[in-house]
């Protein structure tokens, strides 16, 4: 478990001076991940908010080696970097441990980047893939993605006279990653740094492909005041809209159980992208969302029970 008094003494591996929005959750996540990963880390990022705001020539916020090639291929690009490391290690040209971390937004991970991520983890590269998931294509202006939840207002599935936001449920990418049989997959959230950093630490201590899906509140796309970013993350966990858990070699463990599971409306009502859901005519949709959230939480608890070996009597 990372000790904040120790972390504070380290040099900054992700600096200020980037062009992220005031209150941006993505840069917060990147900074916290690097705090734990340390300077012997190579980062690859897909095109997206994080990459764009942090590397506008000649300014880079990254104080570790960083590569960006294109949008849909963070998985493939980091595979190449890690493959070279393996080759150099075998040739005796390098003998220190280096972390290989790929960052991608939900756009570059759930949708256009899904193929290259799937290929990378199937091949078993020793990489950690961190998805900063803000539930839409934010960098291009808040378009719907495979991660956008039902009912959210986005620019390509907007709320209008006839349609009420996205009509489909979001993909469960964490489950897709677990189905690949990787040694470690987890969900975390910006706003709970202890949970996120301990998951990063654990992941980096494991050989093989690891995946952490980090929920990232976005003040611009979700429409809320910037100081609430961390609180939004905590509310998502408290309402079970975004459960925090990890799957270690197929064994599920819920890492955060809300003391009091709040109704999902508590989280929804604070966001402009869900404003229409708080209207009386949207009650059916809101109820549907609550039912789905409850079912997902129940399913997760069942998975945890089913995958945890019974304690010997």
């Amino acid at each position, binding site marked *: 478990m990372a000790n904040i008094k120790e972390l504070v003494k380290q040099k900054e591996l992700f*600096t*200020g*001076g980037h062009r992220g929005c005031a*209150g*941006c959750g993505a*840069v*917060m996540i990147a900074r916290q991940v690097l705090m734990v990963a340390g300077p012997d880390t190579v980062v690859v990022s897909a095109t997206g908010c994080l990459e764009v705001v942090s590397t*506008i020539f*000649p300014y*880079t916020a990254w104080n570790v080696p960083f590569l960006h090639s294109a949008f849909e291929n963070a998985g493939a690009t980091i595979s190449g970097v890690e493959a070279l490391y393996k080759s150099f290690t075998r040739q005796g040209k390098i003998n220190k441990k280096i972390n290989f971390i790929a960052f991608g937004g939900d756009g570059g991970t759930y949708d256009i980047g899904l193929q290259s991520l799937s290929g990378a983890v199937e091949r078993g590269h020793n990489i950690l893939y961190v998805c900063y998931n803000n539930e839409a294509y934010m960098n291009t202006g808040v378009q719907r993605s495979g991660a956008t939840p039902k009912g959210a207002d986005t620019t390509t599935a907007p709320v209008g006279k006839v349609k009420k936001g996205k009509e489909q449920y979001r993909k469960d990418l964490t489950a897709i990653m677990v189905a690949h049989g990787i040694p470690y997959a987890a969900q975390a959230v910006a706003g709970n740094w202890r949970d996120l950093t301990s998951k990063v630490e654990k992941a980096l201590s494991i050989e093989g492909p690891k995946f952490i899906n980090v929920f990232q509140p976005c003040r611009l796309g979700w429409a809320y005041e910037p100081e609430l970013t961390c609180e939004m993350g905590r509310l998502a966990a408290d309402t079970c809209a975004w459960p925090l858990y990890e799957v270690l070699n197929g064994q599920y463990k819920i890492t955060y159980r809300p003391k009091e599971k709040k109704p999902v409306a508590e989280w929804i009502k604070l966001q402009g992208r869900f404003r229409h859901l708080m209207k009386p005519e949207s009650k059916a949709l809101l109820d549907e969302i609550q039912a789905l959230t409850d079912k997902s939480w129940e399913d997760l608890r069942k998975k945890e029970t089913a995958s945890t070996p019974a304690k010997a009597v």
Partner: protein
Amino acid sequence: MRCVLSVEQKNMAKKNIEKKPGWKELPEGDLIKGGGTAREFKTGGWRSKRPILIPEKCISCMTCWMYCPDSAVIVKDGKVVGFDYEHCKGCGICEHECPVKGKAIKMVSEKEAKASEKK
């Protein structure tokens, strides 16, 4: 309606373009040498509010430092001592996350803070 730049503005624009390195001086390829060069880019001008530290209330829990998206909380010898106003964007996360009762950080209007600085 034509938008006309003043002579001063035209000269400044020209200077900005001329100051930047030409293709022969830049490193070859889309390469930035060194890390963290973004520190040289000042984002403090984005603010409409700024955080003020109330040192006697601060317990140096480092929560604000951990969550600041712009690495703008300054820590010295294990204590929070202030903010990097060249980079702070005034998001207010520090104040919001401060666990101390009554808060050890207060967001104040940037305009007023600047005005009182000038005095």
